[in-house]
């Protein structure tokens, strides 16, 4: 016996051993319990090899194969998943191509049609009337009549009333109503009420839209115009300090 005894046993188990060899081996198995035990183990392992019954062919399998063979070329040999992925890539590529082509077409139409359109529009359009240039702002100072003395005060808001109490009628934020700072014009405007000063809102504009700091420019202008120190207050004529005019 020039082969491994286990392989001989396996052939015997599978019925692949010639009859005369099988007879010899059977005699040897009767004499050698180790060999018989080996055969028993091989047989047990072989018998334990069990799998569930295979699923039957799905209905129409042959027809599907024939259809796939007739309709497809090399592409039909590709697995289903690869073909699905290929179709997805193809669809994405087509969409991308259509998008690029559309963009290019629009861009081309815009660049080629623009000069023609301009000429056509210019030729067919009526003459556009010349718009007069905006008058240049005069550098000369604007004559502003100072408010008459005794002009009634405007709306009685905290700003104007408080403004009147400021020094030189400036449109500044009021000083704290401690009496000392608002004593100058408090009698004319009737302002200086601590409650009104306290209600002053620094962030809100006056009724004419001016903010607190704008009054400084107006006062400077007045000083440059007539060299006097006027106290016009805000431009609403509510200022009561006109002692210089």
């Amino acid at each position, binding site marked *: 016996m020039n082969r491994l005894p286990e392989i001989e046993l396996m052939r015997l188990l599978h019925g692949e051993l010639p009859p005369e060899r099988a007879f010899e081996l059977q005699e040897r198995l009767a004499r050698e319990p180790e060999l018989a035990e080996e055969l028993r183990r091989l047989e047990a392992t*072989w018998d334990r090899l069990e799998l569930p019954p295979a699923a039957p062919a799905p209905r129409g399998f042959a027809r599907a194969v024939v259809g*796939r063979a*007739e309709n497809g070329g090399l592409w039909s040999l590709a697995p289903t998943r690869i073909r699905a992925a290929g179709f997805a890539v193809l669809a994405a590529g087509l969409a991308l191509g259509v998008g690029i082509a559309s963009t290019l077409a629009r861009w081309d139409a815009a660049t080629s049609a623009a000069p023609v359109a301009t000429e056509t529009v210019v030729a067919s359009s009526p003459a556009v009337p010349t718009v007069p240039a905006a008058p240049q702002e005069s550098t000369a100072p604007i004559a502003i009549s100072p408010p008459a003395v005794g002009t009634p005060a405007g709306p009685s808001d905290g700003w104007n009333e408080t403004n009147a109490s400021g020094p030189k009628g400036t449109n500044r934020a009021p000083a704290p109503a401690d009496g000392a700072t608002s004593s100058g014009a408090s009698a004319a405007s009737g302002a200086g009420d601590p409650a009104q000063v306290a209600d002053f809102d620094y962030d809100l504009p006056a009724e004419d839209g001016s903010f607190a700091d704008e009054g400084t420019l107006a006062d400077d202008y007045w000083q440059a115009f007539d060299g006097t120190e006027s106290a016009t207050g805000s431009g609403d004529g509510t200022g009561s300090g006109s002692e210089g005019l």
Partner: protein
Amino acid sequence: MGTEPLTAADPGWDALARTAAGDSIAFELLVGQNQDRLLRLCERMLGDVEEARDAAQEVFLKLYRNAASFRPRGQLFTLLYRIGVNHCLNRLRRRNLVRFLRFSDPGEDDAPVVEPVDRRPGAAESMDARERWRVVRQGIDKLPSNQRAVLILAKFEGLSYREIAEVLGISEGAVESRLFRAMRRLEAAQESDRSMVSPAKRT
């Protein structure tokens, strides 16, 4: 079609010759006659029903496209088995490559889905059978592909050593050698599984 039968041994060769001549009905007949055994082979080799159906379709399509190039020799089903085994081995190689690239453990994807407990009569036996199938499937999946092919052809397809050698293009000695090594591996796997699943039974 008027095609002369090329061999009297297997009428399948005649169907294949008619297929090569463009007879789709002959091809459909050929597919119908061999679909069950080819599907079974692919399912045993791959361990997945859906993948086996896909693989079997591709095997038939390969046969269709190369129908004119095959020379009649022996039984047609050995040619089908040969194409099928090679196709499944290629799939298994691709699967192993994907596993390698994903750094996943072998057999990780093959873990069976946990099913709810069946309380019908005979459910315990059914559960035992399923457990045995799971162990066998895992053991087969762990075999090297050449041993797996030999084992499946011998055990589940019932092919003789000579037919297996013809299908795989190897000698009969190589068949029995691979089969014996496969048996040894499965025996060791079954022993280790028994010792892990029921340690109490050992004592």
